[in-house]
């Protein structure tokens, strides 16, 4: 019962990590899910080696979308842009505990992932080249 509202998700929903705004980010993207109105934005600060030294996310929406954004922000801190680019959605889903999500809710869970990839690709001056959903 209530299988994807377990403690990890609820904890990140109650106490989001890395939430807030960043001044002059090196990479940034915003995206939303028109169906439910979930919104997520990521702002990244990079060092000379293009490694994430700071990350902030902001947004609002369902617990799943916001907890996922918080969890992902922890996951990518310290990674390089290239590493994030090569990351797969399975890595995030594993981190979320591989919840059994239907076609609608998977979009909530992966909105953060999509937004982060958008930030990375736009930093690299490219169009997003990955099918997310």
């Amino acid at each position, binding site marked *: *019962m*209530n299988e994807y*509202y377990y403690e990890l998700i609820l904890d990140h929903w109650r106490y989001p990590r890395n939430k807030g705004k960043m001044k002059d980010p090196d990479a940034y993207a915003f995206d939303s899910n028109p169906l*439910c*109105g*979930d919104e997520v934005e990521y702002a990244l600060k990079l060092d000379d080696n293009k490694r994430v030294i700071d990350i902030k996310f902001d947004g*609002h929406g369902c617990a799943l979308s916001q907890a996922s954004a918080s969890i992902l922000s922890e996951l990518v801190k310290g990674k390089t842009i290239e590493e994030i680019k090569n990351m797969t959605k399975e890595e995030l889903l594993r981190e979320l505990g591989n919840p059994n999500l239907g076609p609608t809710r998977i979009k909530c869970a992966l909105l953060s992932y999509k937004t982060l990839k958008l930030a990375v690709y736009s930093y690299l001056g490219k169009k997003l080249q990955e099918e997310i959903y």
Partner: protein
Amino acid sequence: MLDKQRIQIIKKDFPILNREVNEKKLVYLDNAATTQKPIQVIEAIRKYYEYYNANVHRGVYTLAEEATAAYEESRKEIVDFINANSYEEIIFVRNATEAINLVAYAWGRKFIKEGDKIVVSQMEHHSNLIPWQILSREKKAKLEFIGITEEGKLNEEDFNKIDKKTKLVAITHVSNVLGTINRVEEITKIAHELGALVLVDGAQSVPHMPVDVKKIDCDFLAFSGHKMLGPMGIGVLFAKREILEEMPPFLTGGEMIKNVDFYESTWNDLPWKYEAGTPNVEGAIGLAEAIRYLKNIGMENIRAHEKALVKLALSKLSDIKGLVIYGPKDPEIRGGVISFNLGNIHAHDVASILDQEGVQIRAGHHCAKLVMKKFNVPAMARASFYLYNDEEDIDALYSALNVTKKVFGLD
């Protein structure tokens, strides 16, 4: 409310209500989105395909004549149901959305001119908003809004936005979010005195209460079959005959012509002038059967039943701390729709947990972003009733909401 025994008999007509969801009894409370289908409707469609399927209006053989007769009989069922003057005023379309677009494209493009005004309300479903946004931009006409009060009613002070420049007032009869029953008769009277036409979006009224186009005196009425026990893909545009005669066609091609020459053609009689291509015959037959089902129970009785359910739900849910209900509190002016938010829990999370309990409700902006704006929320959860819902369904909703609070640690 319909009595318990009657409801039990009705429930038996809906095979889907026997199924389980997540090992719980199915409690279907998303009737504003679409309704379930009784066995009578399913059987009528089956019989059509098993016994007399053929294209309509095109053949002289037995099957084609039977199919044509059934299709046109279905139209007559609708004439009677909304008290139109004749079959010429009933156009079969895909859904309410297509009905409204038909008016915007065919009537709007001929009759709306630069500087004209179109008045809609802030509680419109997007299907009764976007066509008017596009039309008014294209024609350099002005789009104006009747606002919503805190209570969730139309702001009557804005009725004076309907003026001599106004060519059309497009307004929903019942809000799919707030449940508000709007006084469309009065609005029509005001509009007509100033020379404007009125389109009523009946998607949430025609299925749930007696609707009489003569009494309202509206010029257009749009509704969808799938929201009233009928199949998907069939809807209706009612329009007054004299208006349909003046309007150019919308979609063109087969069916809708009378004479065809190399460079010019003439249009078929009403209503076929507006029904280009092979129509949805199974849809029309299914919808007519749905109407017979509804008439058998009685639209007055259905309205009374939903009113009683709303009254019960409003009072029962009011003791859930943190639950905010939007829309009028008076069941007299509210259809069977209850939209709400629970504390700071997102509507989608509420709907997901209710789903685990077998309770099927909708969450989101309900294609009414201007209503979300008014109440300053990104989304709402919505429970909506129909004739097969009963007190037990409201109890199930109530306890599932309490489960939701527990999961999220709300007290």
